[in-house]
């Protein structure tokens, strides 16, 4: 990301759009993939954009499609959703000082703080972040959710028309994370944190698998990073 991305002369919506473009590239194809999967599971097409609108959590939505098709009940799906999304509880801490008091913008931003929105906003260079007003945060979040809902709706609309031969769209999410990580690891402490967390994640995935283990593995990785940082700071 270059500083031109954060041109203060541009309108807030324009600046928010520039920031959200990478998410657009990632969210629309994955939203379409979700919508297609949802319909192919025999679920009502309108349910896909509904989940995008009120839940707005990609992994949980994919999970819900499978669980509903398998006959699981709403309570079981909601509990699994909470466990899967509990990692989002840490994301808001990075933005606490950006809102002085509660407002509709703050409430919406908190609701819409996904992995990708967090990653894009947290990846802003500190000098650029310091120049952004609070309005950028909710605008980026709103645009991102718009992309997601559009993708979900489009996928549900085309349903089974998408040929099985079209594969690889979901790689956009992996590519997005890779790029955001490259932007993040420009200092030694940050690179060390990423390496350590990646090693803990690999160990956790190797030992326990990846199904349902993201939250504990993420907690372990962050704990390891915190311990490393504490040791570094110790005299």
């Amino acid at each position, binding site marked *: 990301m270059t500083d031109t991305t954060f041109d203060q002369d541009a309108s807030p919506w324009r600046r928010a759009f520039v920031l959200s473009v990478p998410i657009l590239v990632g969210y629309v194809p994955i939203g379409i993939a979700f919508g297609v999967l949802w319909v192919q599971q025999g679920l009502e097409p309108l349910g896909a954009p509904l989940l995008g609108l*009120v839940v707005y959590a990609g992994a949980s939505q994919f999970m819900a499609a499978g669980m509903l098709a398998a006959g699981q009940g709403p309570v079981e799906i909601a509990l699994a959703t909470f466990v899967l999304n509990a990692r989002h509880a840490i994301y808001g801490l990075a933005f606490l000082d950006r809102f002085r008091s509660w407002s509709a913008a703050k409430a919406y931003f908190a609701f819409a703080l996904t992995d990708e929105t967090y990653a894009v906003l947290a990846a802003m260079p500190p000098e650029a972040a310091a120049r952004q007003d609070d309005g950028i945060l909710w605008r980026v979040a709103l645009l991102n959710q718009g992309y997601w809902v559009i993708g979900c709706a489009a996928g549900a609309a085309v349903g089974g028309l998408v040929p099985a031969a079209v594969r690889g769209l979901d790689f956009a999410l992996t590519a997005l994370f890779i790029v955001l990580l490259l932007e993040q690891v420009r200092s030694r402490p940050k690179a060390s944190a990423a390496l350590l967390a990646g090693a803990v994640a690999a160990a956790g995935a190797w030992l326990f698998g990846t199904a349902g283990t993201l939250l504990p593995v993420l907690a372990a990785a962050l704990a390891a*990073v915190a311990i490393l940082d504490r040791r570094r700071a110790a005299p």
Partner: protein
Amino acid sequence: MSATVVLTAMLMALATASARLLPFLIGDRLNSPALRRLFAELFPPAVLAVLIVFLGWGIGTEPPPVQTAQALGAAVTVAAHLAIRNLLVSVGSGTAVCMAVQALWPHL
């Protein structure tokens, strides 16, 4: 729309919003320079690293076309970003290569 789908959506929304609102409700109690450094500087790359590992972990069990496509897609993504440093180009080119390799695999 069936009541089951609507109820599921509402309960999922409640579960997700609970997690996301929590830090904004009690986060002030956690505000200290050390925690700020962790949450604002060190945790973002750590979270991304964990997500990338988990996204890519299952690749070993995928068929060769998917493995090759994702490996090439990742390589192109990294190369494009190091060369041009444009998020859109990096994500788009990596994804396009991943899709193209899977589509063309029988002919490669």
